[in-house]
């Protein structure tokens, strides 16, 4: 591995794939004492070649690898690919299926933000109490997923033209009960984390990303919205039922780690509102459009942009008229945020103890960036 040269009297630490907080990647830190001079991210440890796999799979069976791109945020991954295929094939999705898709996407977004919360708490040294609280709350959502789709995580519930299963009866008030429970729990998170003075002085003013830098470095998702720029694909290009639901885009303008945590916190509040609206007023009707497992798609290029938990996820689908896509280019949000993470050491003063806090404020999912 020919890494860039080390400056004199600086110690290079390899924050390897085996590290309590490093996830599936390796981060090289040039450390002098407690201060970090340079961060080099070494990605690729979970590269599965999904773009190559999709080329020899039909559109239907292509959803399975795409689902596993970010297991915590399954729905938002497959919704991107499915929307691209629907644009290509010109399929019409029934109204009820759209609303179910939005419900599942928002539940998956809460799931993914809970993951970010838990690791954010543990990275400041919270002795994994808060982290395990998030696993308890995630079980509530996983039970709902399991009841609706049959699987806890990678449930590939969407397909081009609709949704596999309709809502089981009594599901709507289960969702309302879950929303009420989660609202109470998130008050505890707010008191336990954001109001805690020690947590505040570990997070305030750390890793400041000014709006100008955020744009230049290509940040996305809560990282971008934490710096005061309100770009959210659900509002720029409304897909499914986001157009006719009331919710707003959250931004914070403190530009630091605490701002990103607050953005995620309020986004969960918005997601709970959306779930409540859907559970109360979901229209009736069929759930499956015209189902054709080996459909032919006219030749051309189609781009779909969706808002995943970590940011804007883009699919650029090239088709050549056969049953398989000619090429699928996946623009993953974590890859863009990882570049922001690499440049943060130059933008402001970073300590070794801050690295886990910053990594988890960016909330990377390395399988998503390595594809």
């Amino acid at each position, binding site marked *: 591995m020919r890494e860039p040269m080390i400056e004199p009297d600086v110690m290079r630490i390899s924050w390897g794939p*085996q*590290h309590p907080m490093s996830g599936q990647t390796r981060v090289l830190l040039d450390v002098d004492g407690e201060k970090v001079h340079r961060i080099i991210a070494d990605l690729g*440890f979970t590269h599965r070649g999904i773009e190559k*796999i999709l080329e020899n799979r039909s559109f239907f069976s292509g959803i399975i*690898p795409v689902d*596993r791109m970010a297991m915590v945020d399954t729905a938002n991954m497959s919704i991107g690919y499915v929307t691209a295929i629907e644009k290509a094939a010109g399929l019409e999705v029934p109204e009820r299926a759209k609303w179910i898709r939005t419900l599942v996407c928002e539940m998956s977004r809460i799931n993914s933000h809970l993951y970010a919360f838990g690791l954010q708490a543990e990275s400041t040294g919270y002795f994994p109490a808060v982290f395990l609280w998030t696993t308890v709350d995630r079980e509530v959502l996983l039970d709902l997923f399991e009841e609706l789709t049959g699987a806890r995580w990678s449930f590939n519930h969407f397909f081009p033209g609709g949704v596999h299963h309709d809502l089981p009866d009594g599901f709507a008030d289960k969702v309302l009960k879950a929303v009420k429970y989660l609202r109470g729990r998130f008050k505890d998170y707010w008191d336990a984390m954001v109001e805690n003075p020690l947590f505040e002085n570990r997070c305030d003013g750390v890793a400041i990303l000014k709006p100008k830098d955020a744009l230049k470095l290509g940040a996305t998702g809560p990282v971008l919205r934490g710096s005061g720029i309100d770009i959210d694909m659900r509002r720029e290009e409304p897909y499914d039922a986001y157009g006719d639901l009331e919710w707003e885009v959250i931004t914070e303008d403190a530009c630091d780690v605490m701002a990103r945590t607050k953005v995620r916190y309020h986004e969960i509040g918005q997601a709970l509102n959306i779930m409540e609206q859907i559970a109360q007023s979901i229209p009736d009707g069929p759930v499956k459009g015209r189902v054709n497992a080996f459909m032919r798609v006219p030749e051309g290029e189609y781009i779909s942009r969706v808002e995943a938990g970590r940011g804007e996820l883009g699919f650029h689908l090239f088709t050549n008229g056969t049953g398989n896509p000619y090429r699928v280019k996946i623009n993953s949000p974590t890859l863009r945020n990882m570049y922001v993470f690499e440049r943060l050491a130059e933008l402001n003063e970073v300590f070794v103890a801050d690295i886990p806090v910053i990594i988890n404020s960016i909330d990377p999912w390395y399988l998503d960036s390595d594809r």
Partner: protein
Amino acid sequence: MTEEQTIKRAFDNIPGSGAAYNLIDFIAGWSRKYSIWPIHFVTGCCSPEFMQVSGSRFDMERLGVLPFASVRQCDCIMVVGVVSRKMALRVKYLYDQMGDPKYVVSVGACPTGKGPFHDSYAVVAVDDYVPVDIYIPGCPPRPEAIIHGMMLLQEKIKKERRIGVKD
């Protein structure tokens, strides 16, 4: 002559050495069975399931399985999720760095046989790199399946004979 055989030969003629072996085996088996410390190392997309299993509802620590941070103190690698070529080298390094009674549990379909990525150029099965003790199917396996896998590992540890001739 492996080390165990020499010990066995040295103590053979003392009466009651068989009983001593059984007692030591029992104590070693019991203590290793109830304190498996897997390493904090998730290689792929089953990692949320590993979190849920060590979480509060399907608590793995009931069996004494406590995820530990450093390589030296752990005695079990849970290979959770898909293993790419680049990650397989790291799994090999870790396996070599661990202290001796060490076990490998391959969690999920991908490390066992490349799972849904069977035709990918960058994914490998973990068998070619490290000897695996327990395979847990599923993509991702349900938490109960992971706990059942750890219980099977506990049974295997209990029945292992440590001192005396390995028959």
